[in-house]
């Protein structure tokens, strides 16, 4: 139905790699990316395309008195200038609650909120036209305090008030007391996903009045639904194809330019490309919720936990996004991977006029993890135990009870992970003259030759739920086709699950190869011509889409056996596939599959679900809400220049259980990347806001770790199969992000003796200036 597909779609992702499960074939796109030749969504091109641009609110909170587009329309080269009145469908969208306007109507609730769109022949023309749109704002006092927002204080920003969700958990005896009590207040700053490929895509108007959208996203079908609603089109007229994604980490779960480009395309009848620049990107996606956390741990004199009480506040900013689910995670995982007989947890997610926050790797578990692990160190000090020992004494294990009442029914090797990182050899102290300054705090900047440098060691362990929770119907759709092409047996796997850099395309090929014994496996472009693949988030794609692909392969295999039985007159029972051959248990090799198939094509599509979960009781927070739990532990070794407050993370070792490493190299990559992102949150990454405005919307001042900040890692990968999961796998992507931050901060505390209750730790926090 579309006019024509744009050039430079990332066909690179679909080429074949070698190896079955357990091997580590190279990514099909690896070399291209290293050489700078991979086609990202920002490289999309269409001959007669025009460019879209978004006019955004400069104010965190303001009433819009009027919008005048007259002058903008006069700029030569401008095709369209659109405002909320041009949105044909529902001018509200959102992942869980549709509360966010496609284009602001009479109020803006955050700095950067889209107000108008321009379509023009050149990005520069669009920019000039935007400057000529006159928006008359009545600036209002922004709501910025998350605790006020949670407790009904301050201006309500949405009809139902400023509370998005409150999750209480009541577990065990609520009146219990303990001999040893430690309390703490913690803060976590707003982290950004900092993906390198900015939001971008191309919308091509179709001849049927529909739209073809090529876009970098994490979830095609949830985009499709929201775009269709906003455009007032039936689902089948909104067709999405995944384009090259330059990182995601949660920041592409919400819509960015999808509806905007489509609106412009439908209005102008022309293909419309939109690419955010770095500045716009900081306003164009949600961030990690900043948090304020109050904790009290009660224990006996041996350090065994008696109770945990905590109150967690998460600032969701102007719109709900995935705040409700983030709140549930922070609450249900709020006491950490420990046996806690009694727990009182309350977590609030709120609306403010701060930048909208939503999904980011670790998703609520990160904020809680910083607090409960800081508390475990305090407890260790209070009872005079080693920090690892106090954790091991309380470590949860298979069969443990979560505060939600859910039994942990597969491996939970928390104590083992801690022992492993503890037992690793420690690095030597770098004090030999002349020192290599790159190994010192301050690195290349030549701030110390050893003066003021103190070493510290810290430990942490974390817990993360894998897959979607709370009764969500979480599934993926996979289609597998086997046929003979050019005399060679070939398999094709097709899903709508997004490859965002994590390596799903490699995993899918490995699964097909293993299940069907077919060497030549290709992956169809990810698009909405097939059913929902679910979100690339919650560490779930290898589990759910991997499960769907395996299941489709099993169905295909059954069909192949039936075909063989019919054609060869053998019994369909006791057959198997090996290296392209049909093998019988009794008679050995029966035939080449190529010959069995002939001109036949076996093509099967399945929907696959993991076991169901339940919602949480709204009063007690009880319920089997999660599918699976993942665990990782870190030991951080740091050198701190205590006079300048600068930190060098010397080592960041990790142990993690992954159930089964389908692609061991990819598993290591996830653990390294997740740990680096946690390091960023520990010592540098923060979107700083003031009165709702972002103070550092650029990579000049939003710092992410470089190779001189991230140390080499020694990683232990455990493979304790989860009997409920395909191949026994356990989601890998998020757990390392949770424990890395508290381990590093604990190490800085050990070096400095300071309380350090806020992440990221800034030099001023260490020097006290």
């Amino acid at each position, binding site marked *: 139905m579309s006019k024509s597909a744009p050039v430079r779609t990332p066909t690179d992702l679909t080429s074949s790699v070698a190896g079955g499960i357990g091997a580590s074939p190279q990514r099909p796109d690896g070399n291209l990316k290293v050489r700078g030749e991979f086609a990202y969504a920002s490289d999309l091109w269409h001959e007669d395309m025009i460019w879209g641009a978004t006019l955004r609110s400069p104010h965190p909170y303001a009433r819009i008195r009027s919008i005048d587009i007259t002058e903008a329309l006069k700029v030569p080269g401008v095709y369209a200038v659109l405002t909320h009145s041009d949105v044909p469908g529902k001018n509200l969208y959102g992942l869980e609650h549709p509360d966010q306007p496609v284009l602001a109507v009479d109020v803006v609730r955050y700095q950067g909120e889209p107000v108008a769109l321009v379509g023009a022949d050149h990005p520069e023309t669009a*920019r000039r036209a935007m400057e000529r749109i006159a928006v008359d704002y009545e600036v209002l006092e922004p709501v910025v305090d998350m605790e006020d927002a949670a407790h009904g204080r301050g201006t309500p920003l949405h009809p139902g008030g400023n509370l998005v969700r409150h999750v209480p958990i009541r577990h065990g005896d609520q009146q219990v007391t303990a001999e040893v009590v430690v309390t703490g207040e913690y803060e976590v700053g707003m982290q950004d996903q900092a993906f390198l490929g900015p939001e971008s895509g191309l919308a091509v108007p179709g001849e049927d009045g529909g739209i073809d959208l090529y876009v970098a996203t994490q979830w095609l079908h949830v985009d499709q639904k929201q775009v269709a609603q906003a455009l007032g089109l039936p689902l089948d007229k909104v067709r999405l194809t995944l384009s090259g994604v330059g990182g995601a980490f949660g920041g592409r779960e919400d819509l960015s330019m999808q509806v905007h480009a489509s609106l412009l395309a439908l209005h102008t009848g022309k293909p419309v490309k939109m690419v955010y*620049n770095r*500045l716009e990107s900081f306003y164009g996606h949600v961030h990690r919720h900043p948090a304020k956390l109050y904790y009290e741990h009660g224990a006996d004199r041996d350090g065994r936990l008696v109770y945990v009480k905590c109150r967690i506040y998460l600032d969701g900013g102007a719109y709900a996004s995935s705040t409700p689910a983030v709140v549930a995670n922070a609450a249900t995982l709020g006491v950490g991977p420990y046996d806690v007989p009694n727990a009182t947890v309350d977590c609030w997610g709120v609306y403010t006029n701060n930048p909208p926050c939503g999904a980011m790797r670790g998703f609520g578990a990160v904020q809680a993890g910083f607090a409960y692990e800081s508390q475990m160190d305090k407890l260790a000090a209070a009872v005079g135990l080693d920090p690892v020992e106090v954790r091991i004494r309380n470590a949860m294990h298979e069969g443990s009870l979560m505060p939600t009442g859910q039994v942990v029914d597969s491996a939970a090797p928390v104590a083992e992970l801690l022992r492993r990182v503890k037992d690793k050899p420690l690095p030597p102290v770098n004090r030999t003259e002349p020192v290599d300054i*790159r190994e010192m*705090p*301050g*690195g*290349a*900047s*030549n*701030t*110390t*030759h050893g*003066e*003021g440098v103190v070493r510290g060691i810290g430990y942490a362990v974390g817990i993360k739920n894998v897959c979607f929770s709370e009764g969500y119907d979480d599934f993926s759709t996979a289609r597998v086709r086997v046929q003979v092409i050019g005399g060679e047996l070939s398999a094709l796997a097709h899903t709508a699950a997004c490859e965002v850099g994590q390596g799903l395309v490699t995993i899918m090929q490995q699964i097909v190869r293993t299940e069907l014994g077919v060497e030549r496996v290709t992956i169809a472009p990810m698009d909405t011509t097939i059913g929902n693949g679910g979100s690339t988030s919650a560490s779930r794609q290898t589990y759910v889409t991997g499960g769907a692909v395996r299941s489709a392969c099993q169905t295909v295999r059954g069909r192949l056996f039936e075909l063989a039985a019919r054609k060869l007159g053998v019994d369909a029972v006791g057959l198997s596939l090996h290296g392209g051959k049909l093998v019988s248990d009794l008679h050995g090799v029966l035939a080449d599959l190529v010959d069995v198939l002939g001109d036949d094509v076996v093509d099967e599509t399945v929907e696959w679900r993991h076991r169901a979960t339940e919602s949480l009781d709204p009063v007690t927070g009880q319920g089997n809400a999660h599918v699976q739990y993942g665990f990782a532990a870190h030991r951080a070794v740091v050198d701190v220049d205590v*006079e*300048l*407050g*600068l930190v*060098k993370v010397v080592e960041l070792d990790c142990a993690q259980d992954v159930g089964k490493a389908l692609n061991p190299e990819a598993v290591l990559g996830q653990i390294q990347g997740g740990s680096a992102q946690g390091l960023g949150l520990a*010592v*540098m990454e923060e979107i*700083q806001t003031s009165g709702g405005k972002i*103070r*550092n919307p*650029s990579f*000049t*001042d939003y*710092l992410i*770790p*470089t*190779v*001189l*900040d991230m140390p080499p890692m020694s990683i232990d990968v455990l493979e304790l199969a989860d009997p409920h999961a395909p191949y026994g796998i356990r989601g890998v992507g998020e757990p390392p992000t949770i424990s890395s931050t508290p381990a590093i901060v604990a190490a800085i505390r050990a070096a400095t003796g300071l309380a350090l209750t806020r992440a990221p730790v*800034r*030099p*001023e926090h260490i*020097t006290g*200036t």
Partner: protein
Amino acid sequence: MDFLIPSTFAEALAIKAERPEVVPIAGGTDVMVELNFDHRRPTALLDLTRIAELTEWAPSENLLRVGAGVPYVRIIDELGDRLPGLAMASRTVGSPQIRNRGTVGGNLGAASPAGDTHPVLLACDAQVEVASVRGTRMIPAAEFYLGVKRNALEPDELIAAVHLAPAAAPQQFSKVGTRNAMVIAVCSFAVALHPEQGRVGAAVGSAAPTPRRALAAEEFLAGELSDAGLWESPKPLLDSVRRRFGELAAEAASPIDDVRGTAAYRRHALAVLARRTLGWAWQDYCGTGETRSQSCA
């Protein structure tokens, strides 16, 4: 937007005289960022990268003349022994990519208070050679920086080179950033020993509207060193002297609170940087001769 590509300096100066609004571009590591952020929309760019005169360095009388377009990587590789302070500052600039492109001329042209070469140029008494069709003049570094991102260039002038004496004694540069590489200075400090003049050059960066000499610190130290005859028979500096030097250096700053750090932190860190860099430079000075190393042992 025009892109003008002169092949000689004279040609470039003629263009600049005729069209003073054109924006020179050397490595482009500042200019391209400004264009990208839409902070600047010049009518024309004047490309200086094809001008051989700008990309050379050579001895000139007792000094070294370093062309404005010599990239950092060459200063590090080719001049590290003769201009150690400038080379140290160059090593801390950006990433390898930025050091391949970026130039001292560009650092001076941008005149950012956070530019890394500025404190070194001040501490080393560098002269900036600027030229126009009207002629050439030398501007002492101390008179070059006029305000935040403002320098002493006339609209028709271009920076031709910087002139510095080859180091006769140790120099040091140090900067604080909240990342261990590729970071803009939260504050920085340079020190250069000038035994032949019986004084020490000292300057702070990223802690005032312009890079600044730390004059009180310089004077204090000159007095301490000559009173105790330390230039002739060097001995380790007293802790109290290094500390006082640090305090005075910090007092030269007038820092602000911003997204990179607080004013109080900058003052504190400058005192530490000044104390440490002086210590390293002086220790090297003690260690440069047989007798000296004994006396400093």
